[in-house]
């Protein structure tokens, strides 16, 4: 009986420590994992496909979260402004569609079409990627810079400081971060926080 308890304890410790190392996700300076996820056009997309990119604006977003919806036009604007400068937007829909069916692939396709998404909108099948990044909500942005070591995390957080009113934004966090990277300057605010919808795992 003691042995069994001991085994359980060991198993529990291994499991807990396993989760503990996964859950915090990335911090600034960490190397972000690449992925191979299905896009709305049926193709698989990886960061390594973008040979000419200097980095990426990876955005965890979805159809159903009001905060994500409020930012859709601004996400499109980010891609229009920065894809040509070497920082394309890569949108990832992280929700489990069994929990949130209105985020399914057909719904993703429709939304991308109606809002004129100019960037890939990928489905994190099996919710493998958002936990590795440490993303907990939508929308949440990771700005990555291509380095010799891999795609280095340079910014984590919100798109800007006003989810309600794009016209009243004072601080464009993501734009400031990418502008700084393009200019070879340090990023003033590398981590910000915003309210979002919890990712449905």
């Amino acid at each position, binding site marked *: 009986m003691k042995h069994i308890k001991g085994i359980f304890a060991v198993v529990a410790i291994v499991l807990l420590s396993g989760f503990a190392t996964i859950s915090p996700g990335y911090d600034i300076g960490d190397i972000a994992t690449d992925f191979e996820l299905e896009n709305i056009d049926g193709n698989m997309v990886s960061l390594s496909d973008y040979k000419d990119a200097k980095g990426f604006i990876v955005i965890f977003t979805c159809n159903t*979260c*009001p905060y994500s919806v409020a930012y859709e036009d601004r996400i499109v604007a980010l891609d229009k402004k920065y894809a040509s400068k070497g920082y394309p937007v890569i949108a990832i829909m992280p929700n489990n569609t069994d929990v949130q069916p209105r985020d399914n692939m057909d719904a993703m396709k429709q939304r991308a079409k109606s809002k004129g998404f100019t960037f890939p909108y990928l489905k994190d099948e099996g919710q493998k990627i958002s936990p590795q990044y440490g993303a*907990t909500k939508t929308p949440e942005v990771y700005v990555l810079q291509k380095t010799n070591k891999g795609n280095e995390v340079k910014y984590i957080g*919100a798109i800007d400081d006003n989810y309600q009113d794009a016209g009243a934004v004072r601080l464009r*966090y993501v734009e400031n971060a990418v502008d700084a990277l393009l200019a070879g300057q340090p990023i003033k605010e590398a981590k910000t*926080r*915003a*309210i979002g919808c*919890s*990712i449905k795992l």
Partner: protein
Amino acid sequence: MDFYFYPMRTLCLLVLILTASCKDSNSQNKPIVDKEPTEDYSDVPLEVYDFEGLKPLLKTSTDKVYVVNFWATWCAPCIKELPYFEALGAAYSDRNVELLLVSLDFPKKYESHLKPFIKKNNLKSKVVALDDNDSNTWIPAIDPDWTGAIPATLIFNKNKRQFYEQTFTYEELETEVKQFLN
């Protein structure tokens, strides 16, 4: 075609006027349109704060235990756990436990979504709305570990406070609150 209906309509109207005028005065107040009147929710009380205004509600010098839940009507997991908070508030009202539901609904949804939700669900807990765009300031101020996802819950008394970025079952919530009693 329409022409043929005009006498009919006039007749109907006449009958309507006649019958209406024959009845007692009470029935004349009834709306004639065959449409459900839009409900008025302006009587649902709702205090709206920015973070500076909310701050005093997030600390206490009394012997009460406060359970503060951050939620929104559009947040499905929030709506799912809301009844547990209501039930807890009812069960522990005589044990100095007070509930506060802080809605993060968009201000333009207060009248169309939040107030109707409060009324239809007959919420007994106090509901306030937090309208403060500068979430980068107030999220870490409420708790350094809060990533900003909702639902989120804060439990505190004058001696300690605990923050939870998670959903609760009734049992889980009760277990946490009990730690603050005594």
